[in-house]
């Protein structure tokens, strides 16, 4: 599903250039539930952004579902993000002036699904994450855990192949984190590829495989947590 070959990425920092990813080779199969770990600055978020086509890379090749993702026009990038990918962010990134249902429905707006239809689909997905009663509420009226479940519903609504989550439980307490993780597992059971960037052992433990990153290279493709 996801195939990275010798991905390199550096950022300009002032006059210098910061080499973040120093040749990443990585493969994630269809239906895998994978976590990426690493200390801060190891490049795990950058890697996820590249996989999510939110950011470009300098050299190497990235294939998503058999398609080479390289030098895409903004329009094509938007198309792939919408069709293949679903994002879940640490800070939720819900639009605060839209209610829960409208937030969930937004990806379908960009697929030109009519308002009525996309809102009813959004309600279904809200039901799946157990928040149907909260459909009319604004994000500001919801708890962190609820917001993240809405964000997951939004990521799922366009029926993407891959769900990417960047520290999805970073802003949540441990019990809510568990709930959210359960949802990811369920999603995975439905056949979706899920990649979670995290630094929490509890979260990483719940995934099939842990990829350990350090200083821009992959340290271990199947890291075993010391129990």
């Amino acid at each position: 599903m996801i195939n990275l070959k010798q991905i390199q990425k550096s950022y300009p920092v002032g006059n210098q250039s910061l080499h973040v990813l120093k040749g990443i080779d990585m493969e994630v199969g269809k239906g895998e539930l994978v976590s990426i770990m690493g200390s801060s600055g190891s490049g795990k978020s950058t890697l996820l952004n590249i996989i999510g086509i939110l950011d470009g890379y300098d050299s190497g090749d990235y294939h998503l579902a058999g398609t080479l993702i390289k030098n895409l026009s903004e329009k094509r990038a938007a198309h792939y993000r919408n069709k293949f990918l679903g994002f879940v962010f640490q800070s939720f990134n819900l639009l605060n002036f839209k209610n829960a249902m409208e937030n969930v429905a937004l990806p379908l707006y960009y697929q030109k699904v009519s308002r009525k239809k996309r809102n009813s689909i959004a309600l279904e997905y809200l039901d799946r994450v157990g928040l149907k009663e909260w459909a009319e509420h604004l994000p500001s009226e919801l708890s962190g855990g609820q917001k993240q479940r809405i964000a997951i519903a939004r990521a799922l609504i366009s029926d993407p192949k891959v769900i990417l989550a960047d520290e999805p439980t970073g802003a949540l307490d441990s019990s809510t984190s568990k709930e959210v993780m359960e949802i990811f597992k369920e999603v995975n059971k439905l056949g979706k590829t899920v990649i979670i960037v995290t630094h929490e052992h509890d979260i990483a433990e719940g995934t099939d495989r842990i990829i350990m990153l350090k200083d821009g290279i992959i340290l271990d493709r199947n890291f075993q947590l010391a129990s």
Partner: protein
Amino acid sequence: MFDIDKWQEIFHTIDKNRLRSFITAFNVAWGIFILIILMGFGRGFQNGVHHQFDDDAANSLFINTGTTTLPHRGIQPGKQINFDNEDYNMIREKVEGVEYLTGRYYVSGEFTVRYQDNYSSFSIRSVHPDHLHLEKSIMIEGRYINDKDLMEKRKVAILGTKVVKVLFGNKHPIGEYITINGIKYKVVGIYDDLGQEDETKIIYIPISTAQLAYGGGNRIHRLMLTMGDATLEQSLEIQDKVHAMLAAKHVFSVEDKRAVRIFNIWEEYIRWMGIFDGIRLVLAAVGIFTLIAGVVGVSNIMLIVVKERTREIGVRKAIGATPHSVIGLFLMEALLITIVSGYIGMICGMMFIESGLLSNLMLSFGFPMDFFIDLSVNFTNAVVATFILVFAGTLAGYFPARKASRIKPVEALKDE
């Protein structure tokens, strides 16, 4: 563009961000409002200036007598110059380019004028037949003074509407006799005048009659003439020629401009038009700056909006928004707000002018309202101005929107 869903999305965004939308809208509406007011102001001023000259023939010379100020052929300065019928005849016969010519013999003071039991005092002007055209009197009944009146020194009178009202009330005055200081005159005509009301409180009689009846001999106090469609240069030539002729006849220096004083209304008119053009230029400049201020205001708000919504743009892009749709979102919102508020501003401005509120306001501030008449706005101009602001405002919104659409999602989503 006419995607209902897109518009719903835009209405929704405007509705959920009311303060921001209101401030943008107010900015545009206010700009248009001020612009419309300025346009009405300019138009009123134009009308006012025209009106000032409409009353009298624009292209005319007023020739007044004076005293010499330069020694000439051994005669000391201080000699009084007087006109008489010969001067009138001389100009009539020898000056080319004169369209209408009249003299005026002033019968000093106001005279008691009587009709039956009604009496009042009015000014009497004794004139030649051409005076009708110089004063732009409008005959509403009967006739003006004619050459036969002049030749036979007939005792006929032409009354202003105000005079008729005072002396006759509702009675029909034509053919009736009025008494001016004991002498009876037959009323043969009634006139009106567009100028001040006092212009219709005057009684006109033939100049020859007045000269005979009130001991004037053949004297004339003032000569007035029009020059048709002569240009400024031609009118100045005629002015010089008349002056030279009078200088030769009355024996004073051609250099002596105060022995006979000639007042060229054409010159005055052109001077006024110059002032008017200047004021119009100022108004246009103020208008343009108002427009620019409006455009800058809108683009400023757009910049802030884009900044404020950067994260939203990032989210939208992450879930599949194309750059095109991001530009569209911002542009349509700006367009909608500017069109609606521009329209409101335009209507308010026009109502403010047409209802007379503006004139009342100006009056209360002590503007000389003689120079501001019929404050009004040309609808087409108003629409064009509104369109320009809407267009420029939207254009000003385009660049921040385009910039926003090009932000990489990863940049837009960065935590502050």
